[in-house]
């Protein structure tokens, strides 16, 4: 089955491993992805602090090109892009004035956007489009020896999540469970990790990450499973510092759900980008093989 696909800048940068593993998993279960040709950055929430209409235009250019190709749905694995795309649709719908203006600008290069492209996240597609069976069929080695917590973060769930319960999401838990990993209850799964702030003013956000790690450790998780490149980075790069400040060993590997799925499907650590992990200890690496 074919889907249109928008990777976003992060998946070509710090979230490289996310794209690598996601593409591998898709290949394995037969999802064919068609990347939007010559896509541009969605602007992320940072751009919203600069200009409303230009932010709408940045997103709309991608979706307009997709509509031109005959698409009506797009998969975007990055949760910032997921939010921005949804926001654009909502704002174009809620404020007709903005829609007119946006299209006026797009028309400069012969594009128009309806505001109706359905934005989908892999967690939505994999669970709700019936791919779970395919995933189960492809599982070669069950990961029953591991315990993990699933951490969803913010922008996937808030404010526009329609495919899962935003106050108590389940889709990632369901997917990861397919691999045999014991998914633990984790009440912090919808909390903010503060990435956008911590990556710039680290001292202000340490506590957020510390609590996330500490609770996962307390629940005896072997790793944390995430769905966002920024969460992954933020939870990783702060660990050393946190352990120094709080004088407590709360270190844990942070993996993408696609990496966990891939591991169970027998794909190599390198192919899944797990070797790009900053918190990959030799022991953990051995345990994965």
């Amino acid at each position, binding site marked *: 089955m074919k889907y249109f696909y928008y990777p976003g800048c992060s998946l070509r940068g710090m979230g490289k491993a996310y794209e690598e593993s996601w593409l591998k998993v898709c290949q394995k279960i037969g999802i064919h992805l068609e990347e939007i040709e010559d896509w541009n950055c969605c602007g992320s929430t940072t751009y919203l602090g600069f200009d409303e209409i230009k932010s709408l235009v940045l997103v709309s250019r991608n979706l307009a090109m997709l509509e031109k190709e005959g698409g009506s749905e797009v998969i975007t694995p990055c949760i910032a892009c997921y939010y921005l795309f949804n926001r654009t649709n909502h704002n174009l719908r809620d404020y007709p004035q903005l829609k007119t203006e946006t299209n006026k600008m797009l028309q400069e290069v012969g594009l128009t956007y309806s505001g109706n492209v359905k934005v989908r996240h892999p967690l939505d597609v994999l669970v709700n489009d019936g791919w779970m069976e395919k995933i189960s069929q492809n599982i070669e080695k069950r990961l029953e020896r591991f315990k993990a917590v699933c951490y969803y973060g913010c922008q996937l769930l808030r404010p526009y999540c329609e495919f899962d319960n935003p106050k108590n999401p389940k889709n990632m838990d369901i997917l990861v469970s397919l691999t045999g990993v014991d998914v633990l209850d984790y*009440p912090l799964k919808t909390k903010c990790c503060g990435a956008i702030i911590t990556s710039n003013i680290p001292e202000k956000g340490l506590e957020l990450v510390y609590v996330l790690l500490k609770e996962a450790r307390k629940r005896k998780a072997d790793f944390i499973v995430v769905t966002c490149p920024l969460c992954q980075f933020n939870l990783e790069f702060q660990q050393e510092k946190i352990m120094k400040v709080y004088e407590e060993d709360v270190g844990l590997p942070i993996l993408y759900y696609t990496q966990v799925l891939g591991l169970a499907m027998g794909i190599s650590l390198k192919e899944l980008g797990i070797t790009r992990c900053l918190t990959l200890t030799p022991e953990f690496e051995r345990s994965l093989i």
Partner: protein
Amino acid sequence: MSTNNKEIRIGFYICHCGTNIAGVVDVDKIREFIAKKDNVVVSRNYKYMCSDPGQELIQKDIQEHRLNRIVVASCSPLLHEKTFRNTLEKAGLNPFYLQMVNVREHVAWVHSDNEKATEKAKALCNAAINRVRYNKPLEKKRVPFHQDVLIIGGGIAGIHSALILASAGKKVYLVEKKPTIGGHMAMFDKTFPTLDCAACILTPKMSAIKENKNVVLWTNSEVIKVEGYVGNFKVTIKRNPRYVREDLCIGCGQCIESCSYKEAKYPDEFNLGLSKRKPIYIPFPQAIPNSAIIDDKTCIHFKMGKCKQMCLSACERNAIDFNQKEELREIQVGAIIVATGFKIYDPQKEPEYGYGVYPNVYTSLEVERLINASGPTAGEVILRDGTKPKSIGIIHCIGSRSEKANKWCSRVCCMYSLKLAYLLKKHTHAEIYNFYIDMRTPGKMYEEFYDRLLMERVHFIRGKVAEVTDISLVKEEEGKLILRVEDTLASVIRRIPVDMVVLSVGLEPSEDTQKLAHILNIGLSAEGFFQERHPKLAPVSTFSEGIFIAGCCQGPKDIPDTVAQAGASAAEAMAMIDAGYFEIEPITAHVLDEFCSGCKSCINICPYSAISYDESKKKVFVNETLCKGCGTCSATCPSGVMKQNLFEDDQILNEIEGLLVYE
């Protein structure tokens, strides 16, 4: 269409209703427009037509200008048609020469574009002028008013209304869905601000219901059908089986003792699941009727059909009857009082507050039971995890004042939270934190009660808690529930560890409100409570004549207000009953004898069999005492000679034309 136009002299009046109408509809323009119409002698606008000067204005005009048709454009005829008919009568004119135009409910209140609203009003007024020419003088009809009253709901409101009516000698049917009367008030511990015990003031009234010969009490029963109209309602009530005969049971409890279940196993409804009961039980010691009831969903006999039926042999009075079936009872009443109360907001809709997740999070109603001497813990505050709290957080406005839950302020939560704070402090000596948004204490001695609480060293933190969590950040938080809140007055974020959380849940319409509104054909306001006829001047009446509302089914309110409304609705019902009769519209049908062809089309269509065929004349005739005035026969008659008073073809056709062609 034969009307002698020369004789007709119309007076037209459009009401401003303050700014209600005049703020949207250009009343001057309408007045000028109508003044130019044929036969219109007087055309006026006035601030309040329904006021005494307004009515006098019409009377004076009728006399001075020899008016013989009156059109009043104001509010709904359902509200003031009677008023203006009386006005005509006082001036010596037949009241049915009146035609009303509804320019408030159907125009001013529902349209915001002034120009379009004025245009619509113009059409409506023109239609009325057209129609009124064809109005005919009619005689009023009186029908006897049935003396009995039905009260739906056996909480404090229903009980109070019933006792007032019964003491005036009226027969009252009190219908309650639950196995006992008493409602929410019976569950409360103390009442604010006087702190007298709820049971102490309520149970004597409950017993009085049982003792009173004029009250027929049907618990475990529901109203399922209401037919008829004011003075003459026919009501069907479903009495669900109790499996214990109320007339024989004396509430000794032998049956409960002997039940095959040695231990109580099922959540006790009255204690909100904080304690357990057996399948056969008495809701609470002072329940009225003080009779056991068998819950057929949990009783072994009903579940599996094989039980030793120890209860049966234990009852010396042979009160237990497994063969009881649901029964339908039909009664006739003149008036109905609805007092179905409220239900509390379900805090599980907001998982952030941890209700149902953390055992030590309670709703305020559960706390009422918890601190009650006859409650599950005999009044000792022992939490679900077996500990006693040293610190307690009370969070106000749960489910209230929110677009996401209920928009309204539930009115009683601030006061009952203060009361619970006081009682919990007395019971536990714990540190108590109240988290409020705005402290609302309007009411006699209410602010004084707040003052008293301030002196009790209770904390008052202005800010709504966002989250209840057990994830601790510092040592002293371990094992506690932590409340994260903005102390908005100090402008800081605080984390407060407590042992117990009380959620001050709001009040919302009880479950069957919508169903009952449908059965009774009474309106609901936007928030889902029953709609009163007028928010200020008819607070216990509804748009259905003869049906009254009292207590929280109309909107959240405290006990004093509830009791006041209960009294008011009893008095309103009594005023109708004691008049002995009521006037109905003379809207019956009649046949223009000479033109009837005797085709009999109308006979089968009449729902009341009011039309018969006269073999000798070969024509039909209408029995006007049986006719209720629906007009279906009139619509059916192929010759157009079946006429419905006030709704004759001429009147309606001219109204139609008036709406479409007016310039």
